[in-house]
């Protein structure tokens, strides 16, 4: 029995050692950036460009939905900078003094996306009312779904979606694979999907574009470094990285 116990405790000890070594990998130079999931690809590029201009800084990015990030910050997660995909969530952080002086980093418009061979012959938003097509939207509880519904309401189109995808990435994947005939996604999704999708523009007067506010987290350890990163995002260099991924400069919607 003693042998078995020693064995079991040995395993437990090994596991805790492993976990311990994972946990201790963070260092004092690390800037912790919490960013909305829809920024996944562009964050890599932003961070790469930033570390080029400011060597020695180590940026750790935590990606999640905006609402999740807000909850994590309220629960005391170690964040220095927060970059969200909608204004309302940032306002809630501001109301609780959890962040300081948010600024708009970028904006994103929406488009109607159809598979490259356009199997449903989709030409405009009106086609989303056709019952013979398979239509996808984001769920109304995530920003891309809420905006899509605002667009449809403003255009007077009664769409009956066949699926309400939990996030824009899974919606894009289903349009790219041709399982859906059309869906409303972000302009930036078209930029990353390349020629696998056809883009049909949506009248910008129908809706408010999505904006991405960025702010310093009040409880962060490095407010000065956090502000430097934000300054970089708002700088010409940072904005050109965002523009290359299809984001609009923030001043266009300010």
């Amino acid at each position, binding site marked *: 029995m003693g042998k078995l116990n020693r064995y079991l405790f040995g395993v437990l000890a090994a596991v805790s050692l492993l976990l311990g070594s994972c946990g201790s990998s963070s260092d004092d130079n690390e800037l912790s950036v919490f960013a909305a999931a829809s920024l996944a690809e562009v964050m890599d590029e932003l961070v790469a460009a930033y570390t080029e201009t400011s060597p020695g800084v180590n940026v750790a990015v935590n990606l999640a939905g905006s609402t999740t990030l807000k909850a994590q910050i309220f629960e005391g997660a170690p964040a220095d900078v927060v970059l969200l995909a909608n204004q309302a969530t940032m306002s809630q952080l501001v109301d609780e003094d959890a962040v300081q002086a948010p600024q708009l980093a970028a904006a994103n418009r929406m488009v109607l996306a159809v598979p490259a061979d356009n199997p449903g012959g989709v030409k405009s938003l009106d086609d989303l009312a056709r019952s013979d097509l398979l239509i996808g939207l984001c769920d109304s509880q995530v920003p891309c779904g809420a905006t899509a519904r605002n667009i449809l309401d403003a255009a007077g189109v009664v769409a009956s979606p066949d699926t*309400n995808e939990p996030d824009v990435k899974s919606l894009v994947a289903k349009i790219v694979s041709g399982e859906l005939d059309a869906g409303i996604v972000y302009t930036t999704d078209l930029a990353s999907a390349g020629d696998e999708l056809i883009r049909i523009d949506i009248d910008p007067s129908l809706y408010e574009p999505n904006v991405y506010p960025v702010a310093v987290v009040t409880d962060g350890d490095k407010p000065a470094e956090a502000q430097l990163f934000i300054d970089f995002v708002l700088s010409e260099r940072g904005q050109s990285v965002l523009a290359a991924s299809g984001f609009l400069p923030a001043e266009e919607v300010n």
Partner: protein
Amino acid sequence: MAELGGPKGPAPKGLIALAVLGAAVILLPIVGLLARTPWSRLGELLGKPIVGDALRLSLITSFAAAGISLCLGLPLAWILSRTRFWGRSLLRAFVTLPMVLPPVVGGAALLFALGRRGVVGEPIYDLTGFALPFSVWGVILANTFVAMPFLVLTIEAALNNTDHRQEAAAATLGASRLAVFNRVTVPMIRPSILAGLVLAWARALGEFGATITFAGNLSGRTQTLPLAVFVSLEADRDAAIAISLILVVISVAVLLILRNRWWSTQ
């Protein structure tokens, strides 16, 4: 602590401590769920249409998936256990693959195979105009894909452990192989068939990744309880907790009832 048979003496403290820790890993999250449950608003939350729709759909699709798993999985388990052919080990490995595969990969694979642009799905769609994704049939298929391996494994293990002499005796007395299967083999492994059925049903009830990837998410058509929890979690956490509670209650109730009825006698 009372002990059943075997060596006498108190249970080793080390084992007890680890067992308590093991139980805690499983029970603590449930305690957390119960602690966060808004009990006073429970009735109102459970009365939301999204909950009723998801509950009905979950019950229909999980039982359908368990039924299909039985119809197809029992013969499959029998073939794996009672016949010898080239590639049998390979087939067994692939049959259990969905247990290891992340369900979202399973859902994507189902799309590649049976979506309207899929290897098999495309000709079917071209011929009939019918496509599985985004339909209740898609949910049932995704559930079956992840659930059937549990049934096949359980039944195959039972078949491998049964005494072949009764089957041999029946065959000597002139029973055909199918008759032996129906009248000797199946009654002999009945408890394991039920156990496999329950495991498959429980797995189907909790299925999330393959379903949302292959069948999408539409309230009343493809939004099962786990999907309803997921989409509610960010916007309406209390509703998500209430739906999770239904899942816990249904699962515990069914597992307890079936355990008492069929498994305690073994």
